[in-house]
Each structure stands twice: as C-alpha cells, then as structure tokens.
C-alpha cells in the first residue's frame, strides 16, 4: 500500500488553500478531487473577500497565494454595493458600499471554475516539490482505521495510507457522514443558492453599471422578488459576464415550496434586472423546408459559425484589453479595422441569412448548491480523530446582512488546518489533544468565528446609518423600539452587548423573518421607490433548456438513493430540486439522477453520495 503524509479530500477553494499552505510548509500532501478537472464542481456567488479584522488575524487569499493580486483570474474588484427593495416595477435603492468595505481589504467577484484552476496550478506546483500533488477524477468513498494506520479507499485507485486528513469536501461532506463526525445539516441550517451566469460584453458592463474598467458592482435585491421567502437576490458584475442568483433559507422554501428557478426567473423579470442583463441578440430565421436536406444542414452550420464569429469578435470589440492585444499581436491593423469587420459581418448575417437582431439576454450557465449557515451549524469542534474539517464541510458560511462569506472563511480554515497538521507531523503526534484540539482552538480564535457568534455593533451601525432616511412607521412596531435603541450610540453598545450575552442564535428568529426580507422592503419600494420600465421581455429558458445546456458525464448508476419516497420532505423535492430530478409516482417520489447538479437539496432524506470520479456535472463557469 502506498503511503503519504497527508490527504486532502476535496479540491474547492478551501482544500486548495490547505494544499498550498501545507506544501509551503514542506509537507507531502495528496489532494483528491472527484471532478474530472479542478473547478468543474464548484460554484459560488461570488464575492471573495480579503478581511482586515479589527482584532486577530485571518489568512487571506493573498497571504496563501502570494501573487493573487497580480496574476489570478479574478473578475473585478467590487467598488459599488447597492441594496434594492422591490415592489412590482418600483425600486428603492440604498447604497451599502460602506457595509461591503467594512473590515475588508478588498472584495472581488470570481467565477470558481477559472479561479480554482488557477489555485490548483499554484498549489499543485508547490505540492509536487514535496512529492505530493493533485489527483482529480477520484472519489473517496471510505476511511478506516487499523490500529495506528489511517486508510483511504477510493472508487478509482488502490488504497493509500496517511497520517492525517483534511476534509474539504463541501457542504454535502461524505467524510462527515461516513465517519459520523457530524449529522447532516438540517433545513433550518441551510440556504439554497441558485445562479445563472449571463453573458454581456465587457465595456457594455462598464457603461451600464457606471464602473471603471477593472471595477465592479454588486446589486442586492429584497422585497417582492423573494416571492415571500427569507433570502434575496444578487447580481455581481464579472469581467464579461454577470452572476445573477437567489439565495433562500431552506426552511422557508420547505414551508411554501416554489421552484428554485422560478426565484431566479422572478429576478430576471424585475424591470431593473431585465435592463441590467439585456443585450443585442441575433435571431435565426427559419430555414426553408423545401430546400434539399443537405442544403438545410449546410445553412444551419454556416449560420452557427457566423453567429459564433460575430459574437467572439464583438466580445473583442467591447474589450479594451483584448482589442489592444490583438492589434499589438498584428491580428488586426487597428481598432477601426475590428469595428468595420464587425459591422460587415453583421451586414452579411442579415443579408445572406436573414438573421435579425433583437433585444434579449444570453444565459450561459445555470447552477445550484446548498450553503451552510454557520451561525446555526458550524461544527463546534471541527475534527474527528485525525481528520480536520474546513470550509463548507465544517459548516462555516457567514450570512450577516446581505454579505455571503464562505470562500474566504474556507481559505482561512484551510491555512489553519495546514498549520495544525504540519505541527503534528513535526512531532509525529496525531492524537486528539495534539492535532484536533489545537486546530479547533485555532479556528475558535479566527475573527470569522467571532463573526459567527456575535453581532458587531459597528457593522450594525452602517445599516442603521444607511436606513436613517427610511420613515420609521414602515418598520413595524416590533422593530420601532429596536431601531430607536440602536440609533443611539450608547444604547446600541449596551443593547448589542446584551444581545451577545443572550446569544446571537436566539436573536436570529427576530432578525431573519419575512418582515425583514419581504414586508419592509416591499413597503419601502411601494412608498418611496422609483418606477422603472423596461423595453422588452426577456426570453427565459425553460428548466429543460437550462439543463440541456449543462455539461454532464452521465453515470449509469445513481449516486442518490431515495429512502423515504412518501415523506413530506421528499414530496417537496419534486418542487425544490433545482433541476427537476424528482417526479411523483403512485408509490412515492422517484429520482432520475441524470441532470442532477449535486446541490445537496435532497440530501437530508436520501442516501446521498457524490458521483464517482469524473462523473456528474461539469460546470464551465461555476
């Protein structure tokens, strides 16, 4: 049996950070990732923050990956952060840039496929130097202990023996379930996130969102777009795409089930968002059915090719950097040449093939995943024997205000776990009290854990300041007193202090309610909002079309087994599975696993595993 010092299970951002840090400390580490390529299984919103804590230290992305700021393919640095309260066509906006900048060095929009691949290059290189590395397309299926030995079994490779394990296998952590390190998260501890990536050329984004070339904007949505659920919508600008998503409390969805994609569709239909995503879209004309079959085929190919060329050239035209690059490389004589070629291509499209140009939007990818609500479900002791849990696997997602933070938390955890394991390797001591407890304490000291446990009165003040012009009567009597109290500096300190003693989690039912996410914003929009109109109705793809666009490597066997086909929970899955994998039959629900995006929504009452190595969903954006 082959032996390695450490194994990391899961190659998301948390696992890759752990790999980089441990390798930098000179240790030999193997990372197993189930996806066929790193990044193919990971999705996020996402804004990746670098934290500047008032107290304590965090391991930020740029600490672990030193050339992150110069070299990493992140999208844009977010400089505008605006919350919109919606009611029908009315929108009331509050600038929350101060909340975004709070305790942050920066926050940048990211797409996980690209970013995790970059992380993996950096971490993989460091690991190789120590005799370790990344092994993708391999799914870990069990871990066992034989005396002092820890043995890992995978679906694809021969067993290996290791001294310690870092479990970075995400919110649906099989390592946690198979070892019994923690229970599956319950619906009250989870959010369901659903996202679409929308294409839009770079400079159109700059103009439309009034931002500079490398800057970005984040727009958050609450009010009637939530369809009465606790949660909200987000729209982040990437370099030449937008990430538009909906994140809702799973409990709230179970209470009044609605198709996850309907929540995204509702966002798309909001006039403000329709206007944000709109673009010029070529529309094919019908091919004459009387033409010979081969001719029809030829035309179809030619049109596809032409549209592809046009849209690629258009992307270049709307990107200053790309334009400059291609001119510099001599592909085009000048920027004008690109423009004239683009317009002649467009002419050809309409004259030769009768292609029309319409206003619509272009969706590139649909995705979904659960997110753990760390306030409620973080592992108090994130270890089991010689296994340390990090990131989503340890349930460490932060939801405070509209900010979602999981990426940065996982990176911090990954670094801490790496340090703890390195220390244990040096001493050859992997006992609970030397490895697990040490890591647990380190995590406890992390400023992120503090954020998960207590309200920060300075952060709170930002929201109160931002909302100071909001008529007090909108905020119902329940909040009236609280708001009054919070508005005074001394009373706020006192109240927050008292609340923190009482326990943050006890306050959550008061803070996270339909009032805060739906009623107050809706009323705000109705009374104070500006009416926004849009000139078109977006053509929203059906869920079937969305799934058809995704890239799957189908497995013949299902990775999910339904255990309670007639339970209420499972019946709700018919509505709540983001890709409609469940159908109702006479004898209960049935799953059709092709099309499953491995979000974990149905995990609680199923025998749930990730697919075997290389199988399942392959996200292109993430």
């Amino acid at each position, binding site marked *: 049996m*082959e032996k390695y010092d450490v194994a990391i299970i899961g190659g998301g951002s948390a696992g890759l950070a752990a790999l980089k840090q441990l390798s930098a400390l000179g240790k030999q580490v193997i990372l197993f990732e189930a996806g066929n390529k790193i990044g193919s299984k990971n999705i996020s919103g996402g804004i990746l923050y670098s934290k500047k804590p008032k107290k304590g230290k965090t391991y930020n992305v740029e600490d672990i990956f030193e050339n992150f700021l110069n070299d990493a393919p992140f999208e844009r640095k977010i400089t505008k952060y605006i919350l919109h309260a919606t009611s029908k066509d009315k929108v009331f906006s509050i600038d929350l840039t101060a909340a975004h900048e709070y305790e942050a060095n920066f926050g940048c929009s990211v797409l996980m496929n690209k970013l995790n691949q970059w992380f993996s290059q950096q971490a993989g290189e460091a690991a190789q130097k120590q005799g370790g590395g990344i*092994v993708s397309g*391999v799914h870990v299926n069990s871990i066992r202990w034989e005396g002092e030995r820890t043995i890992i079994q995978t679906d694809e*490779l*021969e067993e290996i023996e290791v001294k310690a394990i870092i479990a970075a296998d995400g919110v649906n952590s099989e390592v946690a379930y198979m070892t019994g390190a923690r229970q599956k998260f319950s619906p009250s501890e989870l959010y369901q996130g659903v996202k679409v990536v929308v294409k839009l050329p770079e400079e159109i984004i700059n103009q439309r969102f009034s931002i500079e070339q490398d800057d970005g904007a984040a727009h958050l949505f609450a009010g009637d777009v939530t369809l009465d659920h606790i949660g909200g919508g987000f729209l982040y600008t990437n370099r030449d795409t937008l990430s538009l998503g909906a994140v809702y409390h799973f409990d709230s969805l179970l209470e009044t089930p609605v198709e996850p994609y309907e929540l995204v569709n509702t966002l798309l239909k909001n006039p403000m968002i329709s206007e944000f995503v709109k673009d010029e879209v070529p529309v094919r004309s019908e091919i004459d059915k009387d033409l010979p079959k081969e001719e029809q085929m030829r035309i179809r190919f030619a049109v596809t090719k032409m549209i592809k060329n046009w849209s690629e050239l258009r992307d270049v035209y709307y990107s200053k950097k790309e334009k400059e690059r291609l001119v510099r490389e001599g592909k085009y004589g000048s920027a004008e040449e690109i423009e004239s070629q683009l317009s002649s291509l467009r002419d050809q499209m309409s004259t030769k093939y009768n292609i029309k140009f319409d206003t619509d939007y272009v969706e590139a990818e649909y995705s979904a995943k659960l997110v753990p609500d760390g306030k409620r479900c973080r592992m108090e002791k994130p270890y089991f024997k010689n296994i340390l849990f990090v990131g989503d696997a340890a349930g460490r997602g932060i939801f405070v205000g509209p900010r979602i933070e999981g990426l940065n938390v996982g990176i911090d955890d990954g670094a801490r776990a790496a340090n703890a394991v390195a220390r244990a390797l040096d001493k050859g001591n992997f006992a609970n009290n030397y490895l697990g407890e040490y890591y647990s304490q380190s995590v406890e000291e992390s400023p992120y854990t503090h954020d998960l446990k207590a309200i920060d009165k300075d952060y709170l003040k930002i929201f109160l300041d931002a909302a100071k012009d909001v008529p007090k009567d909108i905020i119902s009597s329940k909040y009236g007193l609280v708001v009054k109290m919070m508005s005074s500096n001394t009373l706020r300190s006192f109240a927050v202090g008292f609340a923190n003693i009482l326990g943050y989690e006890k306050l959550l039912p008061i803070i996270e309610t339909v009032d805060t996410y739906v009623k107050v914003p809706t009323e705000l929009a109705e009374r104070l909002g500006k009416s926004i109109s849009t000139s078109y109705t977006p053509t929203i793809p059906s869920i079937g079309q969305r799934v058809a666009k995704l890239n799957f490597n189908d497995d013949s066997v299902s990775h999910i087994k339904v255990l309670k086909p007639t339970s209420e929970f499972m019946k709700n899955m018919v509505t709540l599975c983001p890709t409609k994998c469940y159908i109702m039959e006479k004898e209960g629900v049935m799953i059709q696993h092709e099309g499953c995006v491995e979000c974990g929504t149905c995990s609680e009452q199923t025998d749930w595993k990730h697919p075997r190595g290389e199988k399942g969903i392959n996200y292109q954006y993430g």
Partner: protein
Amino acid sequence: MDPINTAVIVKLEPDFSEGNVSYNPDGTLNRAETKNILGPHSAIATAAAFYAKVKYGAKISIGTMGPPMAESMLQQAQLISDADDLYLYSDRIFAGADTLATAEVLKSGVQKMGKMDIVFSGHRASDGETGQTGPQTAWKLGMTFLGHVIEYEINLENRTVRAKRLVRMQGIYDIVEEIEAPLPVFIAIDPSYKSKFNTVSQRLDYERYQKEAFERAKNFKQYLKVFNAVQIEADPKLIGISGSPTIVYKVERIPKGKATRQAEVIDGANQEDIRKVVARLRQSLSTMVIK
C-alpha cells in the same frame, strides 16, 4: 534493472474530423488542402507508450517516415507521450512507397534508434486502411508481433510482457486472449486501448510527465533528429517505388451494400408473440459462446 526502451512508429494522416477534409471534384482526397495531423491510431499507440513511461519509467523514441512538415506531428506525439527522442525519416526517394517499402524504412529507422524492448504501432492508418505496415515492420525487425493489444504489463525482472488481446474467433468478436512473451516485442495497439493508472503515485507521475511533455513539446526541435535514406542505412532496392511491389490499379468508392440481415417483425401485442421473441432470442443465444 535495465530501463525499458520503447519506440513508437507513427503516421501523418489527413484530418478527417468535421470540417477539415477537402475533396477534389472527382471525389478523391485533396491532400494539399486537407490539414495533416497525427493519425488517431498513431495517437493511441503513443498514449500506450506513455503508459510504459508512467508505470515503468520507460524511455520513448518516436519515429515516422514523412515529408519535412511531418515534424509538427512529431511535436503532437511528444505532447502526448513526453517522448525523449523524435525521429523523422525524410527523403525524396521514400516517395511512392507501399506498406512493404515503408516497413523497410521504419525498420532501418527503429534500428537506428538503438536496441528497443517494445515497438508500438497503431492498429492501422485511417487513410490507408491496410493495417499491414505494423506487422511487416515487426517481421523485418524479427520481433514477436502482438496485435490488437488492449492492455499490457511489463515484468521488469523477467523482462517479459503480459498482454491482453482482443481477438476474433469463429466469427465471434470481443474475446480477450491473455498472453505472455519475452521482450523484445512489437505491439500493435487496438483502437479500444485505454491506459489505466490505478495508484496515486502513477497519477502523480502522469501529471509530472505531462507537464514535462508540455515543456518539451514547446522546444520539440531540440529532441528531433532528421535522417535520410543513407543515414538510416536503408537498402535502396527495398525502399521507395523500387521497393514497392504493390500496384494500385484503381480506387473505387465503396458501393452501398445490400442488407444481408433478415428481420422478422413481431408485433408483441399478445403473450404468444412475446413467447416467439423469447424463443428466437434463446435460439440465437445458444449459438453464441459466452464466457
């Protein structure tokens, strides 16, 4: 233990993939217009050699007979296999060679590479379809020939190879024959071959060699040796036109075949019909040998 030396003989072929082929008005291939690439079967043979590199640390030399432009194909092959040496046998007098004359060049070329333990070739070429070059080269080299190989393992100590071959027996396909032979051997790789790397260390080596391959292929000329007929000491009588006994008389387009299978339509609407189907299936199955 001596390291394993492997050679792969590969072929430049027209790219038959979608949109890359060009035909003359008479239906023959327009070779000038069609892009040339490493043939798909050659690519599989190259990948099979890479398996020996990852698993046994084998040294890989790749050789081809072709025009000077074939060097970019050798680059492709290096990218797949992290080859240590590339050989291009290029000479005007090689022109017009049939499979036998080609085999003569390849034999001389392989001998020029040094002493080989395994020589790999593809199953056949996609533009020639004869599948003769491999066996003929093996014969000329005096090596044991193993065709249709889908899997192989080397025993470094005993210097033997164990291979699984996909063979056809009594008209039945998909029979796997397992054989053992002492090195050196000549292996023609079956199109269904796929390397399997079962241990972590193999996966890591795979990654490492792939990276090295990427770097090497960037500077592939550093690894390239171009030889003419004299340099590989090929017998002038046995190469080119003069070494080619084959005369291609005419190439015809393949006529559409008549269907030879006979189908009987059974509705399946009632029990009786279903019984008939089952009976027919039984009957057919009884004539097959199933392992």
